[in-house]
């Protein structure tokens, strides 16, 4: 095998790999501290609170503009989902009805459930 220990490209790749490992290890060590958790969750809590307040404000704003609210759109989406679900059920029934003529997918003839493993049934027991 060729010795590529002096190849600048290989050296660069090794350096990137080592840098990645080092930075990840350092970051993991930092993030393991309770102080990090406290700071992260304080920042996250502020952000979540602000998001909630903004959402409430937007809801009022949309109402004043005579635009549908999120709840109304969600309701509409739910009705569409129900319609889609019913269409899927109709589709499944139609496919089952066409079972005799189909060549693949729903209704296609299934292979027999007769397969045996090449080496026979296993021996049981705890292994680690």
């Amino acid at each position, binding site marked *: 095998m060729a010795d590529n220990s002096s190849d600048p*490209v290989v050296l660069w790749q090794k350096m990137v790999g080592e840098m990645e490992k080092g930075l990840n290890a350092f970051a993991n060590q930092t*993030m393991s501290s309770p102080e990090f958790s*406290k700071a992260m*969750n304080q920042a996250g809590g502020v952000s*979540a609170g602000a998001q909630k307040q903004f959402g409430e404000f937007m809801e009022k704003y949309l109402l004043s503009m005579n635009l549908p609210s999120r709840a109304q759109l*969600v309701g509409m989406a*739910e009705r569409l989902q129900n319609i889609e679900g019913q269409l899927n059920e109709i589709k*499944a029934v139609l496919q089952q009805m066409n079972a005799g003529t189909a060549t693949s997918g729903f209704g296609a003839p299934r292979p027999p459930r007769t397969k045996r493993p090449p*080496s026979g049934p296993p021996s049981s027991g705890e292994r680690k």
Partner: protein
Amino acid sequence: MNALAGLDLASIPERIQSEVQRAIQRSIKGAEYFSTSGPTLGSTPKDIIHARGTMNLYHYRPLSDEVYRVPVLIVMATTNRGYILDMVPGQSFIEFLLKRGYDVYMLDWTPPRPEEKSLGMEHYVLDFIPDCVRHVQQDSGEQDISVIGYCFGGVLSLLYGSIFNDGPMKNLICFTTPIDFRELKLFSNFSDRRYFDVDRLVDSVGNVPPEIILSSFEMLRPASRVTSQVQLWENIWNDEYVKSYRMFDRWATDTLPLAGEYFRSITKDLMWDNKLFNDTMTVGGRKADIASIKVPILHAVAEHDHIVPYEAAKHLIAKVGSQDKEEVMLKGGHVSLVAGANAVKRLWPKLDSWLGGRSI
């Protein structure tokens, strides 16, 4: 200096020429990269045989002349899409199983809608999985079922198996499944009960956005995002590397939101109180003690798993009540254990040799 001393001077012109060619290829392929989409994923032919809310049940069309009697139901992790197990032909776990004669179903998840924020652990374990099991039984005509759970799909499968321990699950296979949540060190610290107000978060946002889930995964290896971009640029002349990068990158960033109550339960019951490990877990008022699982079980863990380290997964086999149980540790990480070139050589043949004899 030492490096220079070992330098083969005669090879320098050849090396420069090769690097110049690669630089040109990088420019061409780099332009291609941004102007094309990645490979089509999850393309093994399948039918949706049942869909309800955040749940989809697929049946994959058989690829062999005969199949094993016992069908296989794969339960995906709720944070990620199921196509990680069905990447591209030749690198698809699903395709592998089909060709080896298994009848394969998958319980995959879609993003919960805002009004589904009230879905809790009991909906997943006592409703969605049993509902899918019933559909698999109906569709296959078989009562027995083998269940494969990946990551948190493994946790859900364990909870299901411990509550419905009198059947119809015949075999259980878990991939990288944590049960000691204290050992998910960084996740534990991020969700430290002294500082993390899960109630406030869930009450504010409803469903937990995918950005939060993705960020918490990426924070486990914060430098890797940048270095993977550097490595992509270096290897952008290599079509196979780029294809693989795009597949995994797309999947890793395609994170799902989590239903609010479900997230609250994971945080309080598993992250804070470690109830699965402490044998105190209940779901919808029903005790879920994994010692009550008696079916044959295989647990595959990855040697270099940074998401579910071995310490978090190692007690599973000791705790289940099965006589026929096996843990196998394979080289690789959390994702490369189940997908990609390494999985083709390591996990998949192991799983086939274990499951085949137990599927008749």
